[in-house]
């Protein structure tokens, strides 16, 4: 049986095909192999076609589901695959260490970089440890500290955005969640080094933009970036928490929408079937795209990098 947990609701037909293929493969004895091989090949072709049909026209809500898929590569996966000699750095040196944000120095194709990413975790234990990828004020202050450090040593910054949003809770409020996010946004604008933000999964509102006032904003093909979750929007504007599909469409939160609005510079293609099916391939390709942008930005002077960022955001949303 195919592992049902990796299939999303709308992938039921793909799940059925995959299950059948696996059944055939596992019960295969040598005498029957010839016939089965033909059948398996046929079914695999069908699956491929179905994946293509599904993934080339995902609805906004389906994209939300793909963006949140538990098997999607997370920040740590990108770091492990792309960064050599990664030196994780901890703490905001004010209050504590928040593992909802992982960050540190390492070599990216030989170039020292500072990576700052939101990490959701992959099983219950790690999800709890990483605060479900919802940073607290100390997380944002840690991010800010790492940006300052990178800027001080003229090291480019790569941020990986993947959060449902900043942590909403008493500790967050009493330690100044609003101020922490605002200061992180501001810090991004102060950087005189290349700063690239990549939305790898879910870009949830203020908690996401805190790590995305960058020179380049890239988005994975099936990632989302939104001012509010479809659930939140549905319950406020439709007064009906189940109106999530309508809300997802109305919010225009897909990478393709954001590219049209001029908010996103480049969409990073995912293999057919999504990043969660082809994790290594996705991460490697994302690395190539990030490297391309980093190479371009390295040509700019420190002052021009700051100016480039300001002009980009000031032009954004103005009438052309």
């Amino acid at each position, binding site marked *: 049986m195919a592992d049902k947990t990796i299939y999303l609701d709308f992938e039921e037909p793909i799940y059925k095909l995959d299950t059948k293929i696996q059944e055939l493969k596992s019960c295969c004895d040598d005498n029957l192999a010839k016939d089965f091989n033909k059948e398996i090949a046929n079914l695999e072709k069908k699956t491929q076609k179905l994946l293509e049909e599904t993934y080339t026209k995902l609805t906004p809500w389906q994209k939300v589901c793909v963006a949140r898929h538990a098997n999607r590569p997370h920040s740590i996966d990108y770091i492990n695959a792309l960064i050599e000699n990664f030196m994780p750095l901890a703490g905001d040196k004010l209050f504590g260490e928040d593992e909802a944000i992982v960050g540190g120095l390492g070599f990216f194709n030989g170039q020292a970089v500072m990576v700052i990413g939101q990490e959701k975790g992959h099983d219950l234990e790690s999800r709890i440890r990483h605060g479900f990828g919802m940073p607290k004020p100390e997380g944002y202050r840690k991010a800010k500290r790492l940006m300052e450090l990178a800027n001080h040593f003229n090291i480019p910054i790569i941020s990986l955005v993947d959060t449902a949003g900043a942590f909403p809770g008493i500790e967050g409020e009493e330690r100044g969640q609003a*101020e922490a996010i605002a200061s992180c946004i501001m810090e991004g604008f102060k950087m005189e080094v290349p700063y690239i933000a990549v939305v790898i999964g879910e870009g949830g509102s203020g908690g996401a933009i805190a790590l995305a006032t960058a020179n380049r904003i890239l988005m994975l093909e099936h990632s989302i970036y939104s001012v509010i979750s479809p659930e939140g929007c549905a319950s406020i504007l439709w007064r009906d928490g189940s109106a999530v599909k309508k809300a997802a469409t109305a919010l225009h939160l897909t990478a393709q929408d954001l590219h049209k609005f001029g908010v996103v510079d480049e969409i990073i293609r995912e293999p057919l079937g999504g990043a969660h099916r082809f994790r290594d391939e996705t991460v490697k390709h994302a690395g190539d795209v990030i490297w391309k942008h980093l190479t371009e930005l390295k040509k700019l002077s420190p002052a021009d990098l700051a100016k480039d960022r300001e002009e980009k955001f000031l032009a954004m*949303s103005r009438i052309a």
Partner: protein
Amino acid sequence: MNWLLDYVRPKLSVAKTEKDVPDNLWDKCPQCDAMIYGQELAKNLYVCPHCGYHMYLRPRKRFRMLFDDEEYSYLEAPKVKEDPLNFKDTKDYRSKLKSAREKTKFDDAFVAAFGKMGGHGVVIGVMNFNFIGGSMGLAVGEGIVQAAQFAVERKVPLILVTASGGARMQEGILSLMQMARTTLAVKQLKDNHLPYIAVLTNPTTGGVSASFAMLGDITIAEPDALIAFAGARVIKETIKADLPAGFQKAEYLKKHGMVDMIVSRHDLREKLITLLNLLGNTYTKGE
């Protein structure tokens, strides 16, 4: 300062001495339920004379209360793309905008004016909570960017009086981007060593609190104002427990080190003038 190059200078228009809604009505204090005669309330700057509750103060009244001799000129409202997402929920967004404009007589939820305070030239921007909950979309963001720009050009301080439920979600990602753009507006003042004072009034929440509202050189809050990042209802649902008394109120924020001072509306003008006197009274090295 290259970003100034494509900048369209907002025109000033002298504020007419329009008459607000008649004050000969009775209002009920939302905190102590006392019935207060409109003229009495207006005279008391919309602070309940019985319990001191600070009611919402409309922009025009705020300007009159703060500027010298009640004299000021409006900065022209910026032109922005209307309804960029063509947004529809149960109602369409354009009709919401239309009725908000009819109700408030303002273009959007932010208005800025230029005038003097204690003799100092100053730009004051006020959020209009009656306009779709003071929410921040393109018009508010661009209004703040241009107000900051105007202050930098005139080399005067900026005071922003906030009142907002957060981002204007009907403008989607473009409303989220205003968190970055308004932060950039504040940065222009900082880069030019011009004071930016944030006056947080009830309520200041979400994307507004998590951007320019919390970046003041000095942060003032009105008494009892709700100042929050996450909504209390969301937090309560998440933790399934009661929230501490006074949670997310101005006094709570001051206790936790997030605002400099809490100033009653009666003292606000005087305190702001003192701050402007102090921040403007710099020394020259070696003198």
